[in-house]
């Protein structure tokens, strides 16, 4: 987009970063610095919108235009920013409470409209900032300040909600895996329409270990699959395992065993409009199936902001009303 190239430093603000030591948000912050360098849009052309929550503090740490708004409204505010100035690269950083509890409605409507913003969802399955209540993604049974006997609520599966609302882009990463986060964020930036990057984020204080099964490189090799567009769905230490279809379900197999070859393994295609396989991939969880990481869905559909601008141009090309004065001349009026 730009011939100037930036360094992570260009995107860092002078603010002291105030998360708890060990918080997963630090890694996410590092990832976004790196990703923005790759995206290549200038800090001045980048707008970072956040709601309220630990995660939402991120906007202060970016040397871009930033707006730390109110709880739950970041998606709607980001929508306004983008429509007002579609030339901006608009990012939203938001928590599972901010985005999916109080902000749920704006979120699903943004996805429906496919407005071109990039949403990074810091999913720590807890309300961090308010010191530890369960969130809409907390696993059922979790004991928290507001659920002393365990929650009785079924959690949202973000990917499924997103697909159900018409989402065109979904990626998943885990905070500690910065390279995958960077890749996902860059892909999100390139995708036109609402992109959601769900980052599984550890809250060391109120929900430590929520993602412990994928918290180290070794564990991730064991328990996740990193999906790559156009590549076979292989995983394991030596890429010795693969995913195949079993009816409508996915199954993990050993390549080379029972006559299964790499050719039997599914090829990842994030670009199919039909979300069936994306849903299946996103739904995978241990122990039989690996957790899917990377860009799971990446589909091209017209965006709201483009459509709006197109419609404006279309109408303007047919109308003689170019100014307020023209408008007055166009309406019924008479001399007295």
């Amino acid at each position, binding site marked *: 987009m730009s011939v100037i190239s930036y360094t992570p430093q260009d995107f860092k603000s002078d603010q002291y970063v105030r998360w708890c030591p060990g918080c997963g948000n630090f890694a996410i912050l590092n990832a976004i610095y790196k990703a923005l360098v790759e995206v290549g849009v200038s800090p001045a*052309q980048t707008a970072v919108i956040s709601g309220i929550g630990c995660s939402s503090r991120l906007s202060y740490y*970016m040397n871009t235009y930033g707006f730390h708004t109110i709880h739950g409204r970041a998606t*709607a505010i980001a929508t306004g920013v983008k429509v007002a100035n579609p030339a901006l690269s608009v990012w939203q950083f938001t928590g599972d409470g901010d985005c999916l509890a109080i902000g749920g409605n704006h979120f699903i409507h943004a996805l429906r409209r496919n407005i071109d913003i990039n949403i990074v969802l810091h999913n720590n399955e807890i309300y961090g900032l308010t010191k530890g209540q369960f969130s809409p993604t907390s696993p059922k049974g979790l004991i928290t300040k507001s659920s002393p006997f365990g929650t009785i609520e079924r959690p949202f599966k973000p990917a499924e909600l997103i697909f159900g609302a018409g989402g065109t882009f979904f990626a998943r990463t885990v905070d500690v895996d910065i390279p995958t986060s960077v890749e996902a964020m860059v892909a999100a930036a390139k995708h036109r329409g609402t992109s959601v990057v769900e980052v599984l984020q550890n809250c060391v204080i109120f929900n430590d270990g929520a993602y412990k099964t994928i918290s180290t490189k070794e564990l991730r090799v064991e328990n996740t699959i990193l999906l790559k567009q156009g590549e076979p769905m292989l995983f394991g230490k030596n890429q010795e395992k693969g995913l195949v279809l079993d009816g409508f379900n996915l199954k993990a197999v050993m390549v080379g065993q029972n006559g299964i070859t790499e050719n039997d393994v599914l090829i990842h295609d994030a670009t199919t409009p039909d979300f069936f396989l994306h849903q299946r991939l996103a739904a995978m969880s241990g122990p039989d199936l690996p957790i899917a990481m990377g860009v799971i869905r990446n589909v091209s559909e017209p965006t709201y902001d483009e459509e709006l601008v197109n419609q404006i141009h279309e109408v303007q090309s047919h109308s003689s009303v170019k100014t307020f004065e023209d408008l007055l001349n166009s309406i019924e*009026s008479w001399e007295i």
Partner: protein
Amino acid sequence: MTKSNKIIELEQVVIRFSGDSGDGMQLTGTLFSNLSAILGNEISTFPDYPAEIRAPHGTLDGVSGFQVHLGAQKIMTPGDKADVLVVMNPAALKVNVHEIKPGGVIIYDEDTFNTTGFQKAGFETENPFVELGLKDVQLLSVPLTEMTKLSLEGSTFDSKAAGRSKNMFALGLVCWLFNRPIDKAQEFLMKKFSKKPEVLRANIKVLVDGYHYGNNIHLAVSTYRIGKSNIEKGRYTSINGNKAVAYGLIAAAQKAGLQLFLGSYPITPASDIMHELAARKDLGVRVIQSEDEIAGISTAIGASFAGNLAVTSTSGPGLALKSEAIGLAVMAELPLVIVDVQRGGPSTGLPTKTEQADLLQALYGRNGESPLVVMAASTPDNCFDYAYMAAKIAIEHVTPVILLTDGFIANGTALWKLPSLNDFPSIEPPRAIVDASEWKPYLRDPEKLNRYWMMPGTEGFMHRIGGLEKHCITGEISTDPVNHQKMVDVRRMKVEKVADFIPPLTIYGDEESDTLLVGWGSTYGHLRSAVDELRESGKKIALAHFNYILPLPRNTHEVLSHYSKIIVCELNGGQFASYLRSQIQGVTFQQYNKVQGQPFEVEELVVYVSTIL
């Protein structure tokens, strides 16, 4: 029951069209008022819709009315009671029985005045006029339905479709009655139905037949001639408040050199502002019909952050929902125009009725010390001016502004002289006057105390704002006690400073009288007309009418303190009175209030004031 017919020369006249929702009364009334305006009359109109749901045909709930007041001059209200009432069915008669002046004319469709019609309207006898105790009116029975069918005989319209044109027959008749030019009416219809030549032809045929019907049979009622007004020469249109708000915003955006953005969610009676702006893609207006009111204002806040002239429009319940986000706009200090077209409350209330009961909500409906500018338009046409000024203040003082209108002026129309933008003050978005390296997001203009508005995309001015309390210069998050006090104070002072940029309060009427009526917003026409009437009858009385509410004009205390008796007249329980008491010590305020979902009547004001003078 009837008087002898004569030609009455009038300074002004009130005509009310009333019928079933499906009878086209709004169109009839609009056409008639426009015809009158073209003739050089002043006009004021008020549609009186039924509740939001369509009620069954012929019932009281389904009655839809449109009142037109026209005259040579000083037409400030749609009029209290009608000189001429046109009713399309018995239900319309029943609903409007108290809306007719003594000696007035009732034109009714005799074809609907039958047993079925009486029953639907809940009459118990076959003589509705007697049953209603109507005396001292001139009745004019016309077979509207039948004549319309006859008029369309041989056309392709079936009799049901033909029936739908009977409003045109009535309009033709009334045009004859008031000497309105039938050819102008035809022109209007031609525009309206340009895409439906069939319908157009039928409507014109019926209209003309109605006119001639009056002419031919020389109906046994008074006919009217109305003097021409001597208003300023120029190009005019008739405009309602919602459209005027939309136009004012468009004008302001152009003057400021900004793109106009509206984030809004439909709600009666504010939706038409959105409809109007959504249709202005030719002018590049960006409208998001959002998923709810919170998203409406949130998208607007985002658009403001991004540098647009950002607006959100709503009515009372929607304003309540926006409360929290308005607080963000106050805290972040962003320009934002919030239009609240008030309606009857509380809660869902009376959505199609008018009221002034959102004032205190506008002033105080947010957590914390959260000051912003509150202003109110007072006539359909000055909705243009105040929308323009709301935008100017929002932009130049970098603050949210709530503009209050209400169902009465939003839907009512008045004559409007097409403005020239040259006559309007410039609007200068306040941009940083120092280099990026020296600039800080909460540096302020020393005169207005606004911060400077620098938007994304501007090289070098990257910064962060937000809803947490912030340091008074850098904008960094701050919980410092003294800084907080400073910021609370400066946000208040910034709003108070707006008083240096608004006109002083003026007095209408007898400045030297003892008694002062005080009003704000849409009651202006009624209050002023009442003052005129009172003065004509020899009483001494003055009026102070407010368009700027927070801050109040600087001279408010001084002006008010001249009067020993001050009566604050409002369509609510006394909200402005209560606000004035809280702001102006040492002055005693009395109240005259009405909370009935209806505008004042000039007459009730005159009677009330007369009793206390």
